[in-house]
């Protein structure tokens, strides 16, 4: 069984978000890059667990990104996974990114493709769906549990106001979130092993980007908090009712 795990590079969750070049570029000064948490904590760990249960499982990591993504790819390899493919291009267009991954998916005929629920920088929640459409397989979004018996997956996914349990045969694309697995920390053995695991660099397919980011903006600053004394809760209720019109 072959699993393809999508890993993307995102700024650390505590990064200061700022822009340069007249609001057209993300300010990378002082930013620490991490594996997108949904990819690292949930989809990658679940793939590793499946491999721990069944040694015939192989895991390939795929990233669409420049050479600066290699440290996070190595970290993902240190957690687990057999090999990685980096597609050497940078883009913000979801179709472009997903079509690159779909090309890898087609060429390698993977049984299972995992993505994270969303990237914490672009927040599209869309790469998995596009890949699934391009390779014409079912897509389970926002999975909170993933079990596999033979070639049939039982997946729990988030729906509005609850969850849904479904069965579906592989091949399949799944986007993973909390619940699917528990975060792991890479150990020394993993880190050493990752150094020699194959990391292949592919040049991108000729695919048209359908969107591009023109500029960024920061939200307007809050006016500042209005504090109410703890013995005057009635005043807070009055403000919420009359001023904020929120209740």
């Amino acid at each position, binding site marked *: 069984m072959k699993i393809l795990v999508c890993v993307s590079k995102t700024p650390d969750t505590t990064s200061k978000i700022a822009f340069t070049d007249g609001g057209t570029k993300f300010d990378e000064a002082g930013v620490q890059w991490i594996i997108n948490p949904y990819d690292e904590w949930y989809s990658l760990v679940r793939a590793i667990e499946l491999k721990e249960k069944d040694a015939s499982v192989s895991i390939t990591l795929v990233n669409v990104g420049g050479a600066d993504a290699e440290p996070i790819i190595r970290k993902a390899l240190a957690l687990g996974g057999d090999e990685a493919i980096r597609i050497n291009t940078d883009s913000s267009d*979801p179709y472009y990114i997903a079509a690159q991954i779909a090309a890898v998916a087609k060429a390698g005929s993977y049984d299972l493709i995992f993505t994270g629920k969303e990237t914490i920088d672009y927040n599209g929640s869309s790469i998995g769906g596009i890949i699934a459409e391009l390779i014409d397989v079912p897509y389970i979004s926002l999975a909170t549990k993933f079990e596999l018996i033979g070639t049939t997956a039982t997946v729990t996914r988030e729906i509005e106001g609850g969850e849904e349990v479904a069965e579906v045969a592989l091949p399949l694309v799944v986007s993973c979130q909390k619940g699917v697995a528990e975060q792991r920390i890479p150990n020394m053995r993993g880190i050493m092993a990752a150094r020699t695991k194959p990391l292949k660099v592919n040049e991108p397919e000729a695919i048209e980007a359908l969107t591009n980011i023109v500029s960024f903006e920061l939200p307007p600053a809050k006016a500042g908090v209005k504090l109410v004394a703890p013995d005057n809760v009635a005043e807070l209720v009055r403000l919420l009712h009359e001023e904020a019109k929120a209740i």
Partner: protein
Amino acid sequence: MSVLIFIDQADGHVKKSSLEVLTYGAKLASQLGVAAEGIVLGTVSDDIAALGKYGVSKIHHVSNNLLDHVDAQVYAKVIAEAANASGASIIIFSHNQTGKAVAARVAARLKAGLVAGACALPDTTNGFVVKKTVFSGKAFANVSINAPIKVISLNPNSYTTIAGEGTATINALHIAVDTPKVKVTAVNKVTGEIPLTEADIVVSGGRGLKGPENWGILLDLAKELGAATACSRPVGDAHWRPHHEHVGQTGVQIAPNLYIAIGISGAIQHLAGVNRSKVIVVINKDPEAPFFKAADYGIVGDAFEVVPQLTAEIKKLKAAN
């Protein structure tokens, strides 16, 4: 050319987020001088013609019961075919759970440019530029769609619903529907609760409440306000509250009218899930808690004293109105 708006329903009832996208799509259509049409899939019990009051002239209905559960693969094919048949060049979804599953597939199928997580009407004065939230609500990106077909999914609670007058004509659309490959074996709805992403008011608790046995004061307040309940990540991790209540960067992202944070410090990862809320109230005993910087109103005080008083005052307000 027209704008096609996907109307999401569950158990036959049109979702609140669908009214937002109808309003948004109709506004966009009038901005471009084209028609706005809706599409609804599966068995519906609500009066869908009445949705005309949100600005759509026609609603396509594919009433096949194979569409009663959302299978993204099946849905995408039907919606893409309907878009082709009706000559739609812009297709609008809510960026809710259904939209996250389906919009991307529709876009890929039509080779459309996709903006997922839009938060304002497109600027069509020079090209087609859509504002979306990025960095988990900490910033916005203006994204230009350069393809002839465009798909937009709109963040829930980011566009105000406006109801006018009018009835839509219903067009029963006959499109072959594939049998879903995904077999739904169970649906577990959290009953009696307001879905977090649809709630106008959310009352949320953090580690400051000390333990699950203390949640009663928060639940009382939520009940009085008709609010949904949420929590910080450590609270979900410790199973003090169900995991689906955890909001933040790695949890649910919400944008209610009012968010009341009780005993939550306001870590940047928490704020990432709630910073699109219109009004934020923070109750925390530590005046240095970072959450106060992101708040509109605050009380520096002990939650165990303040929250029951707040519930009582709201009760009074309701009695007086």
